């Protein structure tokens, strides 16, 4: 398919061989209902206007683009521009999608929303919108993550959500996702499942991308105004891949703009302790879609590692799988240590504390910039702020609070 006519997914949610609806029959009607409701909402000018209003007045959009001149000069090559999703309400891009889905839940008369969360960012964003719209909110979180992310668990509780620790499997994000699916299939009549990334069964990957695509849509006029042209490369971190799809989507037809997704290499790809599904995985079926997965020879999903909990997931959104195979986007990896170094650099040279997830995209830009001419432009998605990562970073530096 020529990317200037890009119109994926198809009606059944396929991005080429990826995506689809791989769920038990019990969930099929719920997904059909969601798909119909989402299509109706998309075609409803009132829904779109309200979404725009909420993004402007509740989230604080548009988020600015900032030219990181000092850091760019120190690196001595390309100019790095940052799309400041960290300045959104709740401190990350996650809220864009949560507002859209919560509005849809209200439209579908579902008074209860559920979510899964790893580090707690999507859980906090979901709890936030549930409070905003007066909905009951239940968040599933692996019991290991509950221990590691006590502050976010408390945030969710402050916002009125119930946090349920999940004890099964590896007790992390993928197990929380399994448990949320089970809740949904049991309580489908009154419950809306707010998925936080561009994965899961159709229509989730498309719907989450659409809600997040505001990121890239804003960038195009902003870059024209700020730099007089579009960037040479757009760089974003990829776990499930929602901030990356959000910033990539409107750039897909702009074939002169290179799209680069940065996966978490953890302790290094060769160590086996990483979360780089596109780089080191094989296509398979998990959590409702076909995509690249980290799996063993027998098709069992393997445990992943990243210093960034938000990237610590064995799958990836199916649209990224398509973008990789089609060659429209390139996927690279950055280790824990490289991400940490970029984290510190942005703190020290630009006065911005980035999320560890976003630090992976920053680290790749920092690796690339010195090799490029000074008039090259790299646009990096600064998907979230790093307040939530204080503990992790301090611990790495041998500091205890």
């Amino acid at each position, binding site marked *: 398919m020529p990317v200037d006519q890009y119109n994926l997914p198809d009606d*059944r949610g396929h991005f080429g061989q990826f995506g689809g609806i791989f769920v038990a029959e*019990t969930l*099929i009607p719920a997904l059909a209902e969601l798909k119909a409701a989402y299509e109706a909402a998309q075609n409803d000018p009132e829904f779109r206007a309200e979404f725009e209003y909420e993004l402007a007045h509740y989230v604080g959009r548009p988020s600015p683009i900032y030219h990181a001149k000092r850091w760019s000069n120190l690196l001595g090559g390309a100019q790095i521009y940052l799309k400041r999703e960290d300045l959104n309400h709740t401190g990350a891009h996650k809220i864009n999608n949560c507002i859209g889905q919560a509005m849809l839940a209200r439209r579908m008369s579902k008074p209860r929303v559920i979510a899964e969360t790893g580090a707690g960012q999507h859980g906090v964003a979901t709890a936030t919108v549930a409070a905003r719209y007066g909905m009951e909110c239940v968040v599933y979180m692996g019991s290991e993550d509950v221990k590691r992310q006590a502050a976010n668990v408390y945030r969710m509780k402050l916002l009125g959500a119930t946090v349920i620790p999940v004890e099964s499997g590896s007790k992390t994000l993928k*197990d929380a996702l399994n448990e949320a699916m089970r809740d949904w299939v*049991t309580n489908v009549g009154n419950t809306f499942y707010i998925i936080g990334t561009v994965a899961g069964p159709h229509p989730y990957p498309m719907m989450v991308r659409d809600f997040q695509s505001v990121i890239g849509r804003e960038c195009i006029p902003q870059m024209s105004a700020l730099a007089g042209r579009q960037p040479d490369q757009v760089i974003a971190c990829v776990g499930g891949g929602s901030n990356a799809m959000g910033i990539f989507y409107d750039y897909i037809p702009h074939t002169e703009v290179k799209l680069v997704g940065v996966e978490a290499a953890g302790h290094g790809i060769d160590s086996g302790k990483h979360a780089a599904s596109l780089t080191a995985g094989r296509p398979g*079926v998990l959590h409702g879609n076909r995509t690249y997965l980290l799996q063993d020879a027998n098709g*069992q999903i393997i445990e992943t590692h990243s210093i960034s909990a938000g990237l610590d997931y064995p799958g990836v959104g199916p649209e990224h799988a398509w973008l990789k195979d089609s060659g429209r986007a390139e996927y690279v990896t950055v280790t824990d240590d490289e991400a940490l170094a970029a984290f510190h650099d942005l703190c020290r040279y630009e006065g911005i504390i980035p999320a560890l997830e976003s630090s992976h995209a920053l680290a790749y830009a920092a690796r690339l910039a010195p090799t490029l001419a000074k008039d090259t432009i790299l646009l990096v998605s600064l998907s979230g702020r790093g307040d939530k990562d204080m503990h992790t970073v301090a611990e790495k530096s041998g500091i205890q609070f």
Partner: protein
Amino acid sequence: MSRIAAKFAELKSQQRKALIPFITAGDPEPGQTLPLMRALVDGGADIIELGVPFSDPMADGPTIQRASERALAYGISLKIVMGMVREFRKGDATTPVVLMGYANPVEAYGVEAFAADAAAAGVDGVLIVDYPPEECGEFSRVMKAAGIDPIFLLAPTSVESRFTDVAQLGSGYIYYVSLKGVTGAATIDTDEVAQRIPSIRAKVGMPVGVGFGIRDAASAARIARVADAVVIGSKIIETIEQAPAGTAAERVTAFLRQVRTAMDKETRS
């Protein structure tokens, strides 16, 4: 005629309904799977559903997930499960075996290779929980070509167009999931099932088994009155879990015998 079709024909002539227990291969440890399969047959099983363990069993409740985790701790793979069926076949040429599991282990093995090896091992049917009809036209064709029945789920929430889809792609029997939720969840609503089964059977043109939420002889008997088969999973896994060491097989046989007796009394009276 396939083993599954032959079994349903035989049962029909006897005015009996099929009893289909489920166990997870390799649970609680690999050496017990063959004795447990034989114990199921001794207890009156007509067809055995053998679970292929998966790391992320989204459609199952905690009981079957625990069984899956115990089996995976022993490294039970799809290949090993097919080996177990091959062993079982050496002593039992007639009881159909249906493998039940998730798509990813099958895709990792390769669909064509799986079909060939499963058929050679003596597998009669395959139920892939996360392969709804819209995603598995090709899979279904490959299974049928290998002489394996692709078995599909229907749910209380399924609209009528789904009946036609599974009728086209499926064979052997239809597995009607009797309640919303995951395996082992709540208790079955037999009235709802009684209402739905006749129209489903008429539409799909094959036997309809009912599962999810059947936990004792009484509920099994009530379901046997209206359905063609009764599937019991979580309750059997719990029986295995709770059995003192060395007694799982006899406990399972004893439990199934009660169910069998109650079902036959119901359908032959």
